[in-house]
């Protein structure tokens, strides 16, 4: 945790409310997210028990499994989930497209991407692990032969796996956990372990009238009012469920059994509904924040990946392998680190409160422009030549740790290259002379076009961090077009995969 976040947490313990960590929202929130609140049966590897799902806040669809140990019932559950999620994905792919170009020169190529992409939201991090497991369990199934399942089952599996893979990439918003989104934007006065409980986290961020966040968070721990956000269930509830399921099993066929079945459904719905509402409250809170500058660009990339994966499914369609090869895993790790660095830099450019962390570490400074030299020329690259290089002089009240020669950028003028010429102590802080190496709308001599050169009295920030200097966000062209994670590894499911036991 950064020092600024630690201070925010300290303040939260004092004010009794969560403190903002950002001035803007750094995540895309779709107009139509698909929310999934899953529950599984305790003690099993991956036995779906129930889910509330859908895009309509007022009318979630309830899916339940009344006999979770029954294989056929489990597959019926995945089929029903597929019947909700796949049409949602299809809506995104039939939406309009836009054209973009990749590559340069002879390699240049026009491609199309959808204007929409699916966004899957779960309450917490365990929900992401659940989606990954359910994907693993369903994507390798055969649709023909002795163990045939409905074609929607492996289709669901491939999408769930794709979502889970994307969830690992910082900045991607195709699949997110609400607790992670919220704790990226607010600091509470409790520990990260407690923040992973959605109800307590929201209690700190938006406590009910008359309660502090701390008090509300304690109340939110009551499993009767706020059952666990899943997929694990409450142990006390499990006792109730156990009794009901035993009665269901013993009831034989007929109306008595159906009555118990409906009671199981009601109980399960009661366990999930509070979480369903909390996820949507989280959506509201996040929507209330203004969107950060790079959010749309990242979502555009998400839309591109979505478009490419749909194309892949149409053309090839084989599922992801059981496990990453070592090479794929290593590349993937490198990609993750890149994505992290870029995401951090972009957030700093979009948000002074995030940039403040770089100011604190000495990788950025902010100050008033106290002078500027618009007519300055400096020796150019060719001997004897002179090039137009205006400077501005910035006074920072805080000490500056960047040194002369360092290349820097200003988030307000991200296209302008700049370099530090001089750093002179001045009171408690420093005065810095910054030379501007371009970004004047192609002008080669003074005057600077309006707005391209900071005015005296303007507050500016300069930093050595630069999102554009990061390695390309796009996979090399020889890479698979549809994954971000490495070379293509389509997988041919075997008979063994198709008949894999699901007990």
């Amino acid at each position, binding site marked *: 945790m950064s020092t*600024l976040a630690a201070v925010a947490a*300290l303040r939260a313990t004092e004010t009794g409310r969560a403190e903002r960590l950002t001035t803007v929202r750094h995540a895309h929130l779709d107009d139509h997210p698909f929310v999934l609140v899953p529950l599984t049966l305790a*003690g099993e*590897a991956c036995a779906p028990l129930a889910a509330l799902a859908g895009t309509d806040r007022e009318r979630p669809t309830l899916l339940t499994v009344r006999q979770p140990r029954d294989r056929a019932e489990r597959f019926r559950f995945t089929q029903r989930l597929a019947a909700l999620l796949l049409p949602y994905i299809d809506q995104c792919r039939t939406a309009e497209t836009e054209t973009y170009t990749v590559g340069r020169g002879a390699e240049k190529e026009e491609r199309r991407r959808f204007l929409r992409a699916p966004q899957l939201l779960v309450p917490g991090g365990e929900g992401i692990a659940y989606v990954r497991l359910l994907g693993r369990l369903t994507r390798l199934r055969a649709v023909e032969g002795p163990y045939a399942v409905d074609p929607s089952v492996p289709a669901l599996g491939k999408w769930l796996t794709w979502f889970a893979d994307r969830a690992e990439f910082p900045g991607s918003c195709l699949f997110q956990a609400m607790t992670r989104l919220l704790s990226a934007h607010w600091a509470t006065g409790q520990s990260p*372990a407690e923040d992973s409980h959605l109800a307590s986290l929201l209690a700190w961020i938006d406590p009910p009238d008359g309660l502090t966040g701390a008090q509300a968070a304690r109340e939110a721990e009551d499993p009767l009012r706020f059952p666990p956000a899943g997929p694990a269930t409450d142990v006390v509830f*499990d006792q109730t469920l156990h009794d009901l399921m035993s009665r269901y099993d013993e009831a034989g066929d007929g109306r008595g059994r159906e009555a118990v079945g409906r009671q199981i459904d009601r109980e399960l719905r009661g366990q999930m509904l509070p979480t369903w509402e909390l996820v949507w409250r989280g959506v509201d809170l996040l929507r209330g924040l203004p969107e950060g500058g790079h959010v749309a660009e990242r979502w555009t990339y998400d839309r591109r990946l979505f478009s490419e994966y749909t194309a892949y499914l149409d053309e090839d369609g084989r599922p992801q392998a059981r496990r990453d090869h070592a090479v794929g895993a290593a590349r993937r790790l490198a990609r993750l680190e890149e994505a992290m660095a870029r995401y951090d830099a972009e957030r700093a450019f979009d948000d002074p409160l995030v940039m403040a962390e770089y*100011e604190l570490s000495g990788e950025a400074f902010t100050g008033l422009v106290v002078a500027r030299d618009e007519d300055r020329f400096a020796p150019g690259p060719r001997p004897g030549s002179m090039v137009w290089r205006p400077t501005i002089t910035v006074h920072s009240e805080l000490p500056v740790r960047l040194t002369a020669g360092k290349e820097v950028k200003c988030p307000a003028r991200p296209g302008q290259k700049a370099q530090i010429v001089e750093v002179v102590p001045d009171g408690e802080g420093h005065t810095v002379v910054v030379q501007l190496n371009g970004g004047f709308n192609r002008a080669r001599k003074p005057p600077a076009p309006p707005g391209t050169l900071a005015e005296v009295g303007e507050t500016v920030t300069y930093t050595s961090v630069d999102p554009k200097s990061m390695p390309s966000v796009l996979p090399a062209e020889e890479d698979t077009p549809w994954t971000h994670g490495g070379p293509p590894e389509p997988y041919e499911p075997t008979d063994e995969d198709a008949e894999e036991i699901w007990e």
Partner: protein
Amino acid sequence: MPPQHPVDPPGSRLAALRGPRPPQPYTARKITALTANPACSRRAVLDAAGVDKALLAQRMGYEPRFGQSPFAIAREQAFEALVKWGGYAELIRLLREQLGVPVQEAGVTDLNAVGGDTSLTRRAKETRGLLARLASGSDERLILDRPLLTLEVAGQTAHLEPQALTHRVGGKFYVAEIRSFPAIDGQANPTAVAQTAKQAAVSVLALHRTFEELNLDPEQIAHEFLLICPKDFSNRPYGRLVDLRQELDALRFQLTRLRRADDLALALPPSATLDTDRDVDELDSSVGALDASYTPDCLSFCEMARYCRDEATACASPTRLGGRVRNTLPGVDSTRTALAYLEGVHAPGPAETAAIDQLRAAERLRRLRRGGAA
């Protein structure tokens, strides 16, 4: 099997503190919890005295959220039964595949009871005797089902019951632990594996101590254990050897740091009581007199966590906010003090100055850069 209670040594102060209720057994889980938070005297004393912590917490108004789901219990039992079913057929198959055991060796001793006697002392004695015969080569067994080992921890005797012990695999003794979390594509949940490894290390250590006492060659004890869990999404057992050297080193180190629980209990006034049938105020003041060392991790393993958390909040302990906040406040023992430093109400001492300067700079930047964000 009826619950087995250990027997108190006569005149024990810890037993007197606990009162008339029978002591809770001292298990591998308790030892790993103790080593997870070695600075906590509270838990050390409560466990050594055999106090029912869940009941104690409940009595003091903190309902602990622990316990096992009936589904999880059923699954665990079914899986263990499956592994041992048919004359331990699955276990033997695994041993053959994982440890290269020759087929014909299949001698099994069930130590769940000795001639119908399930008492801990009897089973421990029988286990010791059998170990001595096996280790000296005068007897042969492939599997010991639920052997009972003992280990002295913080002045208390712990009784440990690994699911199985196998003997004479490549001339070594292996502890086997059966768990119901799955290994999917050969990978099990790392947290669950780590937890199991810690518990297995306790059994292996107990085995070492027993060997020392019996003057047997400890080289015969493997420093790996056999983890048996369901394969993928099935019920088929899957086995894997897991190295324990790190866990064993860590455990030995932690155990040397533990103070004897009866010494710790001396800190309590003579009137103190941990008897869950006594008055809540009495309990509260006695428990409060034992030093705790709450961290948010406690929430995941200790029945007392909510009680200790409220106490930590009341005295503004920085640790309650997690390691990362704690680390930004070296030498500062209260978040209230830290806030007072931030306000400039207090001046930090020389040891804290650097950290507090950094915090103040962060605070100032927060104020300047947050604009309209509340």
